[in-house]
């Protein structure tokens, strides 16, 4: 790759093509992937089935995070109760055994759910790299429509195959409504 290109690459974040519909976007993305592009991202106003696969994304870490969180919460909850009731200050409460495990179940359960829920939300945000209030794609005026009724595909300049002209012509070949340069 030429140094000249290199400089160029650093002036733009990428090229963004705007499509009418989900189906259209999916096939464009698919062909871009087949064409060898990897550093790209598609933007839609609602989750579009299959789009992430078309982008070649299938390592979703959220579920295992949630499992870990739930497990942690549950065990933590149970041992907190058992320990304080049996070790920390053993009391004779209504003649019930110190280790009244059935009585510990409700709180154990609630703690499980709580742990899982926190893991789900914060895990999702973490993996999504959110919050990220400023992002280059917002520099594209049409991008407001991304949260309304437009579908975008952005090929980033970091992609080794990225070349302003070629990429532009490739995108044009997918028949978008508009193609815009995404500045940093």
């Amino acid at each position: 790759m030429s140094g000249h290109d290199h400089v160029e690459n650093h002036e733009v974040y990428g090229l963004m093509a705007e499509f009418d519909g989900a189906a259209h976007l999916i096939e464009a993305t698919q062909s871009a992937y087949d064409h060898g592009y990897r550093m790209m991202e598609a933007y839609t106003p609602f989750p579009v089935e299959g789009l992430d696969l078309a982008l070649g994304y299938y390592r979703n870490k959220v579920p295992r995070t949630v499992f870990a969180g739930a497990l942690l919460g549950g065990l933590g909850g149970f041992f907190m109760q058992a320990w304080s009731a049996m070790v920390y200050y053993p009391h004779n409460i209504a003649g019930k055994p110190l280790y009244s495990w059935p009585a510990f179940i409700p709180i154990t359960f609630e703690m499980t759910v709580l742990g899982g829920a926190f893991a789900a939300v914060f895990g999702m945000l973490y993996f999504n790299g959110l919050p990220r209030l400023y992002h280059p794609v917002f520099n594209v005026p049409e991008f407001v429509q991304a949260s309304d009724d437009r579908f975008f595909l952005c090929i980033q300049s970091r992609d080794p195959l990225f070349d302003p002209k070629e990429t532009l012509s490739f995108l044009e070949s997918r028949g978008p409504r508009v193609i815009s340069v995404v500045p940093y």
Partner: protein
Amino acid sequence: MKPSYKDQETPLTLTELTRAARAASTSEAASARQWRSLSELADDGSFLEEVSQAVSGVRGAIHGLDDASRRKFMTLMGASFALAGVAGCSVQPIEKIIPYVEQPEDIVPGKPMFFATAAVAGGDGVGLLVESHMGRPTKIEGNPTHPASLGATDVFSQAEMLALYDPDRSQVVVHEGRVDTWERFLAFAVDLRDRKLANKGKGLRILTQTVTSPTLADQLNRLLEAMPEAKWHSYEPVTRDAARRGAELAFGEPLEPVLHLDKADVIVSLDADFLSWGPGRLHHARAFADRRSQGADAPGEAAMNRLYVVEPTPTITGAMADHRLPVAARDVSHAARALAKALKVEGAPDADANRLAGHETWFSAAAADLLAHKGKSLVVVGEGQPAEVHALGHAINAALGNIGETVTLAPPTTAGPADQLGSLVELTRAIEAGEVDALLILGANPAYDAPVDLNLAEALLNDRGPTLVHLGTHDNETAALANWHVPEAHFLEAWGDVRAFDGTVAIQQPLIAPLYNGRTAGEIVATLLGEVGLPPRETVRRYWRERLPAETFEAAWTQALRDGVIKEQPAKSDADADGDEKAKAEAKPKQYGEPKLDKVKWADAPTEELEIVFRPDPTLWDGRYANNGWLQELPKPITTLTWGNAALVSPALAERLGLQNNQVVELEYREAVVEAPVWITPGQADDSVTVHLGHGRTRVGRVGNGVGFNAYALRRSDALWFGDGLKVSATSKRIPLAVTQHHHNMEGRELVRSATIGQYRETPDFAQAEEQSSHHGMSLHPDPPVPQNEHHAWAMAIDLNRCIGCNACTIACQAENNIPVVGKDQVLLSREMHWIRVDRYYEGESEANPGTVFQPVPCMHCEKAPCELVCPVEATLHSDEGLNEMVYNRCVGTRYCGNNCPYKVRRFNWFHYADETTPSLKPLNNPDVTVRSRGVMEKCTYCVQRINEARINAKMAGRTVGGDEVVTACQGVCPTRAIVFGNMLVESAVTKARQSPRHYALLAGLGTRPRTTYLARLNNPNPDATPAEASAENSVEPRHG
């Protein structure tokens, strides 16, 4: 504030004074401050000296507290009261420690001491032991060596503790409505003495309450010798005239019967509430209960006594009866005649048959029973019955050979006029005639409690009325009419002596210097005797020095002070029949000849009319306790009424007149009219409407003013206890009555278990119904989770066969555990705070005459306590000695425990009930018990402070606590010893009780394993009882599951 009061021309009311005093009183000793501020009010420099003089007067008397320490003792306490009360979080405020300047020998900070003295209620003494914390009396117990106490007390003696610290007590000498000083009164008194000595005491009258104090009687007699024209009247609204006059009719001299219930197999009570009214009631209750439980512990032997009661209005005595018959008060005399006839007593008139129609068999059965037990039976006639019935009672007892056996006769223990009402009438007439120029009222309150037809108040007010000197604990109705009012010392502040029902004399010694500078009747009389400045202690000592052998006097005196009972020698010539009675009561009684009925005139009232029946209030007595919050809030036995009185009517009468509970009626008796709320009372005689005296005070204090209606307004000298011709007219008004129990029927639940002695012999374990045995020990977790203490397991057992439902346990608990008074509005919301309540259930089909059973309910201290399980913060949990502990300072007040308590014994501080602002009430608190703050739960702790004290003493002595060593407040006060408490692991009273066949646990089916358990009640009905009695019999069916 000094000037602001100085400028005032108008007389100061008591409330103004107390307000001023309170304003002045800081954290420093309340009483001392009040004196000071009041002296400013009085604008009299000599006041402070007077204080210190009064103090030095009792110097040494208060078991070694000298002036300084006395003036400081409250400050010291102040510290420990700051300690009471649950503090919040955050950094603690700095506290002061204030040591003595010179520490008295026998005072050990933090250790209570006990002193013997005696309460005087209506003339008869009850021996007491008073607990004192560093010079501050806090709790009253009975004196076991005193025959009228036997270690127990009644509700009144317990409440005396609060009476002592009552902030509304009269606190200064008042002259013509202005604050004045004792010196000025002395000047007046000395001048009066001179004038009266000059004219032989002409125009001088002295009015006392019943006097049984040998010393005071002696003083008065000496005064009368010095002033022969003077006269001594005495009046007690709840007088025993009838009994004395009855004996006079029968034997020719005024005598008083002394009952020996321990010897009586069959007792017939003619309107006699001997368990709660009259001298020696505690003694009688104990004797009765002892006989009641003979044959109760082992079904084999049977010596249980049998009680027949004829009465117009339900009493606790009636509730204990095996056969109870409600008849109008006026018909009791006919009941007596019917018995007399059946027993062939000569001179006995015929009974008016139609008065007792339908009950002939009842009387024949009773009569037969009496005959079958000649010499071992007893007929008791009530204080509220006229003289002739008493006379007839004596005749019957004589005919049965009971006199000298189950009842002995003794000269009255009371000194002064035997016919008190008569002497009051005479006094009134004299005043009206203008023959009285100086009247000393010592303690009495005739302006409130004299019969209304005497118009005594008017007589006193008219311009020919006398100079009136009033000595009283409160600035009351009579004080309002008086020219001089002198605050009276409470007996816990005073020296004196008092005679008990059987003649035993107890010395009263002060526990504390007079808080409000009060004086005793003795001191007033002493001034008239010219013995000014003679310390009251000396007056008493001098009297007894003359009567006890000189050589051993000091020893005897100390002995008397320690035991609370004085050993009398055979009387000297001058003293009235002093010494002997005690001897007589026990040894062979002196004979008074056969009772004669010839002098008796048999009155016959018209029938078919409503009658009104007057009764002393079960908790306020004649009204003297009206300003006592504990007693106002103490549920009255049977009705469970608090804060007020009611017109008690029978269900049938209510039906007839269309009356409901709380509905206000106009009671019109002769010309007087009073408005009263109605309370429908099962077991009330149909033609009788009962009203209790002692309410409707207008000038007694913040607590008592305007509570209830004043029944004295209907009471006439010719109908002291009952009278015909009452008119009842309904109004549309309602006055809510604050009763603590709203539901009176057991709904077929096995709460109070009872059986006849017969059924008991057949099935001794009748009380242990299936539901109990089947669930017993059934548990998933039989063993406690933490190791249990191998030496102690506390338990309580309550013998329902002994409990007479007198409520003494409730008030004793209140006194011991700093339980607050909440007031009528809170009781109406059923928020009363009593830790132990006495449940009362009606049994049987008949609403007109139901069986009545009592069940004291403290905390059960369940081994599997439902309350503990649901507490989110471990504020209530179990100790290793089996106590269900309540940790106030951990409680957050979710009230879940209270909801989940099947026995509903938990009490909640809905507001900040504890009074921590009134200075004079601070010393009242028991320093060993936390004062609970707003928003925390509380309940019976088995007097854990007493357990701890016992444990600590035992530990320091290197031993374990004895099985019966700990005595709870309720147990200690119980007149019948119905409550036993102790250690189940060793041989103890409670262990024994738990082995009784009558032993059962309340709601055992819930598997809570209560540590507080019950012994079933037994009844001993007459097998020959008629079908008419069947209804009453139902009440004693044993109820199995």
